[in-house]
């Protein structure tokens, strides 16, 4: 039996490898899906606020290792996203697939926008030059498409046999 902590590390490390290797191959006009943010959202959804903040922090820290923005900024955003999703939506077991997808899409949009806002506050002026709408569309739509895989991976990481909404059926 693999301990939960090790499982979560494996899930996040796997996400990091995918983000750095496979995701860029399928960039659309230079925009890519944000696997690590998706894992932060999945962590909040499945693990609630407490686990969400830790998973979000870990996922963000992974992104911080890949990019040149201030180290810790993605970790902060990931923690905020994981915690917020956990507080607002965590632990819900019903509501239907559409609501879950909308939740994930909205969380990804808010998380990305939060990153841009905090980044600009920290003097990352280059963020002002990036067209945000296509980025938000790519991140949210791509995240919604990949969400079943992310949720199943995170459920395995958290040691769940099934997703909560499957158990309630």
């Amino acid at each position, binding site marked *: 039996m693999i301990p939960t902590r090790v499982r979560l590390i494996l899930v996040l490390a796997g996400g990091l490898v995918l983000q750095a290797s496979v995701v860029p191959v399928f960039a659309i*006009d230079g925009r890519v899906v944000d696997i690590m943010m998706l894992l932060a959202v999945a962590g909040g959804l499945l693990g609630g606020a407490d686990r969400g903040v830790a998973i979000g922090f870990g996922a963000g820290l992974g992104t911080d290792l890949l990019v040149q923005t201030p180290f810790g900024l993605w970790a902060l955003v990931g923690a905020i996203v994981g915690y917020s999703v956990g507080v607002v939506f965590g632990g819900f077991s019903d509501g239907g697939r559409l609501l879950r997808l909308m939740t994930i899409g909205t969380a990804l949009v808010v998380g990305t926008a939060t990153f841009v806002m905090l980044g600009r506050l920290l003097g990352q002026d*280059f963020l*002002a030059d990036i067209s945000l709408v296509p980025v938000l569309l790519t991140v949210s739509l791509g995240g919604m498409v990949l969400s079943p895989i992310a949720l199943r991976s995170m459920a395995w990481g958290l040691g769940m046999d099934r997703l909560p909404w499957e158990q309630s059926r």
Partner: protein
Amino acid sequence: MITALALITIDFRGDGAGAPRDGVLDALGPVRSAVDWVTSPFGNAWRGITDYDELEAQNDRLRAQLDEERGESLEVAELQRRLLALEDLLDVRGSETSARRLIARVIDAPLSNFERTVEIDRGSSDGIEVGMPVESGSGLVGRVVQVGISRARVELVTDPSFAAHVRLVRSADTGVVEGNGIGRNLTVRFVDLETVVIPGETVVTSGLDGSQFPSGIVVGTVVAARPNPVTGTQEVDVAPSADLGRLSLVQVVLFRPTVIDNRTPSEDEPSEGDTPVDPDVPVQVPRPAEDDGETTDEGANASLGQIGLPAYTSASRSTIIWVVADPSRAEMH
């Protein structure tokens, strides 16, 4: 969240994340290369679908450009030959012409939506170091800011944190060029108010001692100039020469800057490990990287008499040569 804020603070203090990031760049390098190899057919097909129109337009543009440049290359070769001959006559060596270049492929695969750098497929194993200039065929692209074993990251000239010392070719006045963000013109600051700046004038790196760039790399062309009443100087808008939106191949200039420290010995006496220098013995000035024996054909031996009276070199600071400044003999080439 407190930990994240602490990390940000540490990063801003400059104690930062260079080593872990370099480690991840190195660790993921082989994985990414393997995935590139496996997925390249799918990736090419995907790009063919999503970027078809752009690729077709680019193809036409490149054909036209190739025709134009075939003629120009003959002219440039002749000018280059004459320049080298003149440099021989004057006994000067332009560091720009002598620094070795290394061709690198730009990896067109963004890791994130908020990349401020581009990645190239060369790293420390190829002799690349942080700070080295990167240029395309048409001009300065940026400088290396992170180096892994087989990959490196390049900060673009348009990045707001980019700055370099430059020279206006026609007037020979100098200034500092700074980036203003992606897709925006550069700004050259601190140009003398008296200097007549003409739109279309070429701007190149100055290569002044201590500059991170060798002289003569084309940065861009002047678009407009305006006085800055606060500083009493001019600010010049410059369009970058390199097409930063369509980088595929670039050249890394294997150049290490010379750092001249003109403190007198009394301010900082030689310590253990410092070697006295014989004034009559030429000293190897660490200029372009080729001086380390890679492809040296010109060397960079500088007689100390050309720059002042020697004091001593510091063995513990291999890139610094300390000299006693002698303004009456100082010349800047």
